[in-house]
Each structure stands twice: as C-alpha cells, then as structure tokens.
C-alpha cells in the first residue's frame, strides 16, 4: 500500500510537470477532435503524429499519444450520439440509445452523461491499473485460444439478446456479419476466400469500411429521403447537464459498466470490444422496463460509455506489464516506445519507473482534462445539429472518405464503403438492424482465428472447450443466457420487449 502511494507520488510528480501537462492537454484535445470527426480514428492520427514525438522525451511522447487514444474514445461517442455513426467498434452500442436521445431533443444530456460516465470509469480504471495491473496480467494469461473462443460465443449470445425487432432477422444479420468476416486470406493455408479475385479483398473487409458504410453512408442516404423528419431534432437541444433524476438512474449502470469494461479490457486480443456490448445487455436484462432500450434509455448510454472508457484504459495493462499489445492502437504504442529506445516488456516498470507511473498518473489527469474540455464543448457539438443538412451531410461524407482513405492510403477502401452504404440503405428499407451485423463481423474474425487455433492445439478434439474450466464456465454462462432468451414462458414477454 505504502509502495503504491510512493509509486503514485512519483507518477504525479512526473506527470504534473508543466511540459507533461501541456502534452497531456494537447493529446486530449487532438484526440477529442479526431474522435468527433467520423472515420478519422486514433490509429491513423497516432501514426501521423509519430514523427512529431521524435523531439520530445519518451515519457512526454507517450503521455501525449495516450491522451490522443482515450480522447478519441470520448470524441467518438459524440459522433455516435449526434450523427449515428460509430467511429470505433466500441461505440456501436452508444448509437442505439444515444442517437435516439438526440432525436428526442436530449442530445445535451446524452453527451453529458457519456462524458461523466467516462470520467468516473477513467478514474476507477486508473486506480485498477496502478494497484492491480500485475496480478491481473497473470489472470489474463490463463486465456488461451479455447477460452477466447468461448468468450466470443458468449458475445454472440449477447448479440441475440441485444437485437431489436424480429429475432430471425437479427440472427440473419449476425450470420451475415460472420460471413463477411470470413472474406480474405485463410489463416492456416493462405488461400483466398470469397474475394472473387479482387486483390483489395485479400486482407478481408476493414471494420471502419463496413461501419462507415452501413451506419454512416446509409444513415445519410436515408435522411435525404425525408429531411423534414429530422428538422424537429435540431430545433431542440435540451439541457446540457443531466438532471438529478437522470444521474440517479445512471450511476449504477456506470458502476457496473466500469467493472465489466475494466475486466474485459485486460484480456489480450482486443477483449475490450465486448465491454460495451456486455454492459448494454446487462442493463437491458435487469431493467424494470426493458422496452425503453433502443428508444433513448439513458442507462443504455451511461453503462456502455463507462465500459468503453474503462476498457480503453485497462487495455494498457498487458502492454505496460507484459509488453504485448492487445490491439492495433497498442501495437502502435509499442512502435512509439521502440522508436524512443524503450522496448516494452515486463521490465519497463523496474527500468523506467518514471515512464510507467508517470503515464498512469497522466491518465487520471487526462480524464479530468477531458471532462473540462468536453462539458463546455457539448454546447458546441450540439450546435452542429443546427448546421443545415445541405452543408452537414456533404461535410460528414467528406470526412468519412478522408478517414477511410487514411487507414490504408487506399482509394478502393472508399469505394467499398460506398458499396456498403448502399447495402446498409437496403437493409434499413427491409427492416434489418445493422448493429447485430457489425457485432457478428467484429466477433467473427476473432472467433474463427481462436477456434482454429484451439482445434489445432487439441489436434481436432472439440472436448477442449469443455475440458478447460475457464472455457467451460464461459460456455455455461452463454447457454444459460440463451435459455433465458428462448424459453417459451419468457419468450412471450421478450416479444413484448422487442417488437416495436
């Protein structure tokens, strides 16, 4: 305990220097901005800003880059709420109720609670990293391919429970998502699958391309159909700060979301994407009146936003304690550290305590800064809705295109996004929800990879999934949830819940 305080004191001493404070602020500011712009993600931004950090010391550089990363998580929810575009896999869920709130004239409250929820989650996650980082890493090491596969199965069950409207349609969308995730080069043999000889598809479909297409472009096409319907929305902004009643309703979901997000974030292999989904499902399950979900329930924004931010921060644990990056942004942080001559690994804590603890302390400071930057800016973001659509839509389309181009510097990605935009529009017209498709897609990639690794390791025996205790436990949870969702007596009430 005493050592923890010593360590944190060292960290705050480092992070509170004028230069590091300025870098932290700069990172948070840039991060928020790129998060708000649809399509321009933290990966492209950090890659572009890497050369600028050459001149700064490694601690300052990492503080700034980390600020961009969690700033983008904050900013991403703004776009999700206001224009119905999830910029990152983790903000898909925020779209569901956040955008509905915006349509009901409660955009300010949705943005406010997202910022507050994220701040609380960020504070808790900082403490978790400082106090429990190392023991938790050992826990995460228990996860082999079999455990991962079972975790993803649980995620797919979440997806079924998450769906609105008709169950067969939701399952069809999940399966379509899974199918899309299999496009590209086969992991084991290197053969191309479902690419129709198109070279650009040999690495599969990019998440951003799919998400921008079926959410972003499709939403804009749909709105062009009847611009009148949305005029009501931009008239009313609503109060910026949540009322006391809103806050009371949100605090428990925030706490639960923080817990779920923090745990899932530690798992190597991008477990963080599951956090918001898990939180949303949980809130919907335990809500007194689940029919409010999907129609602007504040819990549906507060919980997942907290989970999202907690996961974004605990994702640093495997990087800082093991030196193994759990996702693409963390892989980039590894690159940033190596460029500065620090090779991430288990020895960073002992060899560079200033860097390690300075970065952890800066996360808390960064979260505070984000709250300060964001709450006054909420008014500005909300005013975005007042921009005439004749200007707003082309601008959003343009930013989406720039963002997608910047991922791989590839024009064909932009064309694919346009294609998925048309597909998304058709899906909306036929009454299919895009969210389960996206979840199926995100989970499908990991699921196939882990399934095949697990089966190679077990030499083809499916028993591996039930013989390993952690894996068996996860499958059991999935089975129970599925039973609850499908049992006839409960299904009756479910139909009431899900049909609009």
């Amino acid at each position, binding site marked *: 305990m005493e050592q923890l305080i010593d360590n944190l004191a060292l960290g705050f001493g480092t992070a509170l220097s004028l230069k590091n404070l300025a870098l932290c602020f700069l990172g948070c500011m840039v991060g928020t901005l790129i998060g708000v712009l649809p399509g321009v993600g933290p*990966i492209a931004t*950090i*890659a572009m800003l*890497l*050369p600028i950090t*050459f001149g700064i010391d490694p601690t300052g550089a990492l503080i700034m880059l980390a600020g961009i990363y969690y700033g983008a998580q904050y900013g991403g929810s703004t776009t999700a709420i206001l224009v119905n575009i999830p910029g990152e896999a983790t903000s898909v869920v925020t779209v569901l109720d956040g955008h509905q709130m915006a349509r009901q004239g409660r955009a300010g409250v949705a943005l406010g609670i997202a910022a507050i929820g994220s701040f609380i989650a960020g504070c808790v996650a900082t403490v978790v990293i400082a106090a429990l980082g190392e023991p938790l890493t050992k826990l995460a*090491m*228990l*996860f*082999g*391919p079999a455990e991962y596969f079972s975790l993803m199965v649980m995620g797919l069950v979440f997806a079924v429970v998450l769906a609105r409207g008709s169950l067969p349609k939701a399952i069809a969308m999940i399966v379509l998502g899974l199918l899309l995730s299999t496009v590209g*080069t086969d*992991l*084991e*043999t*290197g*053969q*191309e699958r479902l690419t129709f000889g198109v*070279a650009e598809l*040999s*690495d599969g479909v990019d998440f951003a391309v799919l998400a921008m297409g079926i959410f972003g472009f499709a939403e804009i096409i749909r709105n062009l159909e009847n611009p009148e319907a949305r005029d009501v929305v931009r008239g009313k902004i609503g109060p910026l700060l949540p009322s006391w009643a809103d806050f009371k309703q949100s605090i428990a979901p925030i706490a639960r979301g923080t817990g779920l997000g923090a745990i899932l974030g530690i798992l*190597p*292999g991008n477990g963080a994407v599951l956090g918001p989904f898990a939180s949303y499902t949980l809130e919907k399950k335990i809500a007194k009146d689940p029919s409010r979900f999907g129609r602007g329930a504040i819990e549906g924004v507060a919980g997942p936003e907290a989970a999202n931010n907690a996961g974004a921060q605990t994702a640093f644990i*495997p990087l800082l304690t*093991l*030196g*193994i*990056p*759990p996702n*693409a942004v963390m*892989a*980039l*942080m*590894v*690159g*940033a550290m*190596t*460029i500065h*001559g620090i*090779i*991430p*690994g*288990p*020895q*960073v804590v002992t060899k560079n305590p200033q860097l390690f603890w300075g970065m952890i302390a800066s996360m808390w400071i960064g979260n505070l800064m984000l709250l300060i930057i964001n709450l006054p800016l909420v008014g500005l973001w909300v005013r975005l809705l007042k921009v005439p659509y004749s200007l707003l839509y082309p601008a959003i389309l343009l930013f989406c295109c720039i963002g997608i181009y910047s991922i*791989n*510097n*590839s024009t064909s990605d932009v064309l694919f996004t346009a294609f998925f935009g048309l597909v998304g529009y058709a899906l909306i017209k036929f009454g299919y929800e895009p969210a389960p498709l996206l979840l199926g897609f995100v989970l499908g990639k990991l699921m196939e*990879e882990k399934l*095949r*690794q697990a089966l*190679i*390791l077990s*030499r083809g025996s499916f028993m591996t999934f039930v013989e390993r205790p952690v894996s068996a436990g996860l499958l059991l949870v999935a089975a129970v949830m599925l039973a609850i969702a499908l049992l006839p007596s409960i299904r009756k009430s479910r139909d009431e819940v899900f049909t609009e």
Partner: protein
Amino acid sequence: MRTILTALSVAAAFAAGPAMAQAYPNKPITMIVPFAAGGPTDVIARIAADNMSKTLGQQIVIENVAGAGGTTGSTRTAQSVPDGYTIMMGHMGTHGAAPALYPNLKYDPTKDFEPIGMVAGTPILIVAKKTFPAKDLKEFLAKAKADGDKINEAHAGIGSVSHTTCLLLNAQAGLKPTQVPYKGTGPALNDLVSGQVDFMCDQIVNLVEQIKGGNIKAYAIATPERSPALPDVPTTKEAGLPEYQVSAWNAMFAPKGTPKDITAKLNDALQKALADENTRKRLLELGAVLPDKAGQTQDALGTFVGQEVARWTPVIKASGAVGQ
C-alpha cells in the same frame, strides 16, 4: 485512365528532366512502408528517414500501405512514377520470400526495382516457452525431432517473418512440428509466454524484453556473432546448427527507371545516416545489425536480393505454403 495519367506525368518528368535532377529533391519524398505503423520495419524506416531528411533537405514522409504480407505496398511502389519521389522500405518477405509465396505476384523483386541500399537486419532467434524441457539448442532439436508433430510451433501468419524463418529451421534441422498460425506477433508471443504453444522463431526486437524478463527461453541467435542486446544467447554456430543463418533484413528500393543520379543521392544520404552516431545508436538499441561499408552500396543490395530469392524459393515451395 490511370496509365494515361502515368504516361503524361512520365512525359512531364522527362520534359523537365535536367532541371529537376539538378534540384532533386525539391519536394517531400514519400517512403512506402508496406506494413502497419509500429512494427519493426516501420520503426527502422522512421529512424533512417529522420536522419536522411536532414541530409536531403526535404522531409521523407512515411506512408504505411499494409496488406497481403507487404506485397500491396511493394506493388504500388513498383508501379509508381520513377522520379525519386516515391521510394520504399523493402524487406526479407517482400523482396525475398514473396515470389515463392504469391504465385500471382505483380512484381519481380530482382527486375522491377532500383536498389538504394541495405538499412539494417534484425537477427532471428529460436525461442521456446519457459517450461520447455531442454536446456540448450541441441537438446531442443533432439526433443523436437523425437516428438514430431506433437510439438506446437507458433507463427505470425502465412508469409510472415516468423513463418518463413521457421520453415528454414524445420527444413535444416528435420523438424515436423504442428504449425499454429496467429494474426501478428503479439498474439503468438502471448500464447508462447502463457505456454499454450511450444516454440517460435522471430525477430530480436519483438523478443528481447521477454527473454530478459525470463518469460521465454532463447536457444540461439541466427547470426555469426552474439548480439550486444542479449550477450548470453549463443549463436547457432556455437550451439550446433551453423547452417541456420538468417535475419529479417530491411532495405530501400526505388521503382525501376529511377535516374541513377537520384538513387545515388539517396544511397549517399542513407550511408550518412548509417554513419551518424545517434541514428546508429537508435538502430543498435533495437538489436539491429548494420551493414558494413561494402554492404551499403547499391550493387551489394542488388546482388543480395537475387541470392535471397534463390534461397527462399525452394524452402517455401517444399513446404507447400501459399500466400494470398
């Protein structure tokens, strides 16, 4: 349309020929890195480009064009206008193993590029999970051979450095492990640390801290001399497998037809970077091996690429692995 545009710009370049060559470089140079930002090749490219920009007086901008084992970015470079403003950081995979891995490859590493110069090699290590019951390379090879396909080898995907370099090891040492593919080094290393898989081969920069931290065992380094980053790890020669000599090299290339004086100028800037104390230090800290003076010339790289293609083709063909 594209070809017309290219033709036009080539014509324009020729029209402005002498004046432009005088002024080269008079605008930023794009260096295509055919892998995602943050990986070993990207880091080496950024460190070298940082110093070269100072010498050339123009910024070298890194453009990451990842995909299909680096061949997407290499194809784009091969097809770009050869005016010296598009160059690339090639690699053992893109300019050595690719012709054997990708039957539909749209470029020939030996014919479609002008060599600029070798930048750095990162040595390959043979590593195993920390509980693997073998104390040195000899014991490891004996055990792995005896166990046949009961032993699990992790690699970072078909065509990755860890995949091809382990194919060479398996061929030379007569191993037949079960190969477990991952997407990238991170997840593969994660499962090696937690003991889900038995061994892998990979670049020193990815492994050095895990070895120092005692999370994995290193049996040998595939270079003639020990690495200062890991002085306790014996070379393959010392450990009894002298024929296993391999490193993931990184070298700069320009598209075929780039004027000689321009590639010479780039080679000169690269040699200055490799002589610069700070740049050397940063590269050596990564565990990289830098080429000697003779190895820094354009001709040396041209010859080397031919040898590499000839070396990898039979190993990969024999394994039956196909990229794309």
